[in-house]
């Protein structure tokens, strides 16, 4: 299938802000030290040049199609439809992003950003990772493109056994443990940004639609290829746009990747699902919106942030891909203007959904995707109508969660 060219539907200001005109809230920007300014400028300029460069974009699209495999199918699930109350609540479809190389949406923007780095003459990539989903995606891209790579990972995260960590190493990535603060994703991101400040020949690649301008813009622009293909496919398959799109929201990249082309499609409701961890009331969660995050400035961006006084609160969830105390800037903006509706699901609900998907649907889904499947079924049961068509973003495969889920299965026998 030919990939439709990118169209800018929701441009930020030239300084990278999305502004809610009613509340005057500003999301985005580039809150970084002066020392980082030149590096970011180089990336920003390069990005705008690249997306206008037809040869670059043609090559990129070809590689996304045949190397990453972005042309994944949309699967109608009679079983999920039944679980949500049958066709009188509409039909449920899954977008099979789990079928990408490296098994999640991350490789799309990771590969595109690394390709941009190569185009701009950078020799090395810097990135951060929590559970090595982004780490693996970037490592694969760097190997394919012949770039060196340093992956920053919190020392606590690095201790965990993770197949994607080993795979990153097999790809030749250099893995650097970060011992600051909570020794988890947030300090790892900070460390990667700090390294970016020290290594002008390296380009930073972020794992979500977060960070200083132009990263959120860049990641969703490249990533939106998923949504552009989806939109075309869905129309071919069903004859019209979906009534709803449900995606999980950690930073918000998989959500924006698939929903972006629908931003101006009024008939399509967009839902984002956050992790309520052990329950919103326990305070142990990863729900920036659902858990009452406030405006803050974190990792170079202004967005909604979970705060602990003037410092950043620790998020908590068993889904490492959702363990983040903030959300992407454009996502926070779209929420603030009411374009995206937020829901939550708890860790326990997600794990039960994982088992249901394995047993009844035959798919091993990324635990992250199980939050959205649970919340979507619940919501569709409430709001679904006949002749509607609901699209759930199955944003990743669950191999990294197998050990965790085996334990859950044994305990719940």
């Amino acid at each position: 299938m030919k990939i439709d060219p990118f169209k800018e539907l929701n441009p930020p200001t030239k300084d990278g802000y999305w502004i809610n005109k009613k509340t005057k809230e500003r999301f985005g920007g580039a809150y970084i030290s002066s020392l980082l300014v030149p590096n970011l400028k180089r990336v920003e300029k390069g990005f705008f040049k690249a997306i206008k460069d037809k040869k670059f974009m043609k090559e990129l699209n070809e590689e996304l199609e045949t190397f990453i495999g972005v042309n994944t199918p949309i699967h109608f699930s009679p079983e999920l439809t039944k679980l949500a109350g049958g066709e009188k609540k509409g039909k449920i479809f899954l977008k099979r992003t789990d079928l990408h190389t490296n098994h999640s949406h991350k490789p799309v923007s990771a590969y595109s950003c690394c390709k941009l780095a190569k185009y701009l003459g950078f020799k090395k990539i810097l990135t951060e990772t929590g559970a090595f989903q982004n780490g693996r995606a970037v490592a694969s891209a760097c190997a394919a493109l012949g770039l060196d790579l340093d992956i920053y990972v919190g020392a606590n995260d690095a201790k965990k056994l993770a197949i994607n960590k080993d795979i990153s190493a097999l790809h030749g990535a250099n893995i650097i443990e970060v011992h600051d603060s909570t020794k988890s994703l947030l300090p790892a991101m900070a460390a990667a940004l700090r390294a970016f400040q020290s290594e002008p020949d390296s380009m930073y690649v972020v794992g979500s639609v977060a960070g200083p301008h132009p990263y959120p813009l860049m990641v969703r622009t490249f990533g939106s290829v998923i949504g552009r293909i989806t939109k075309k496919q869905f129309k071919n398959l069903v004859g019209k746009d979906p009534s709803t799109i449900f995606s999980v929201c950690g930073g918000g990249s998989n959500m924006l990747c698939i929903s972006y082309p629908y931003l101006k499609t009024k008939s399509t409701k967009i839902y984002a699902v956050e992790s309520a961890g052990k329950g919103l009331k326990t305070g142990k969660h990863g729900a920036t919106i659902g858990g009452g995050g406030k405006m803050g400035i974190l990792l170079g961006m202004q967005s909604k942030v979970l705060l602990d006084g003037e410092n950043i609160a620790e998020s908590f969830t068993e889904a490492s891909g959702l363990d983040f105390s903030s959300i992407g800037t454009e996502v926070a903006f779209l929420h603030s203007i009411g374009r995206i509706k937020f829901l939550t699901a708890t860790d326990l609900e997600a794990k039960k959904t994982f088992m249901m998907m394995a047993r009844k649907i035959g798919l091993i889904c990324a635990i992250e995707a199980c939050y959205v499947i649970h919340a979507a079924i619940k919501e569709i049961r409430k709001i679904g109508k006949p002749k509607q068509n609901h699209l759930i973003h199955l944003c990743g495969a669950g191999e990294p969660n197998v050990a965790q889920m085996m334990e859950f299965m044994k305990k719940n026998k």
Partner: protein
Amino acid sequence: MSKLNNLFRNLKKNKKSAFVGFVTTGDPNYASSKAIMKEMTKYCQIIEAGVAFSTSTSDSPIIMEANDRAIKSGMNLDKTFKLVKEVIVETKTDTCFILMTYLNPIVVYGIKKFINMSKSVGIAGLIIVDSNLNSPEEKLLLKGLTKKGIGYTKIISPTNSEKFIQQSIRNTKNSFIYITTYAGLTGSKNVNLKNVKKLISKVKKYSKEVPTGVGFGVKTTKHVKQVSKYADAVICGSSIVNKIKVGHEKKFSAKKLAKFIGKYVKTLSAGAR
């Protein structure tokens, strides 16, 4: 006239440079930090007091660890204000206090409230690592601080463009402009004098007035001496913070730690001419 302007006018008169010592407030804890800062007032014309922020995007590992120690000991902005105020009141010092912080704590605290508190405890100046030159927050801060006579320092480094330097000079008010001796993290490399000379002459090209503070990699008395030949202020950070770590790990009492750091800072500051 602001405190910092005053200081630099006097220094200029005496053809001297200021010695600036950096610590994270509350490192390793409130009491020790207070004792250390009191001791440092004896040798520092300026104390740069860092507000601990867990997700710093520009500090060296040494300062990251100091942040961790301070946060663990329960520091926040209110306590930082209290600490600085107590030091100033109890020592009746002339030393200027500059807060070094990230934007998030200020924004969450409230910009207006932050400026008022700074004024009321006697803060002389402010450095915000991640405040973008063109951000709305920068504009609000500049306006508020200037009104209250509090200085505002921007940082420039060898890789910044001329245009960026010009605007940084413009945004630097009633304080020195911070020049890094290399592009990288604090404390990660050694002083690069060539860079220093080049950047100072660039600054001078655009402004005869603005004082220059030079930091990053200034770790020894010799460094201080070399740098103070060119700069109006010499900033020592990681090497002092590292000493605090050493003393803390030896489980020094607040008093002993303060003496230990005082002695070290005394030696360093002796390099400033």
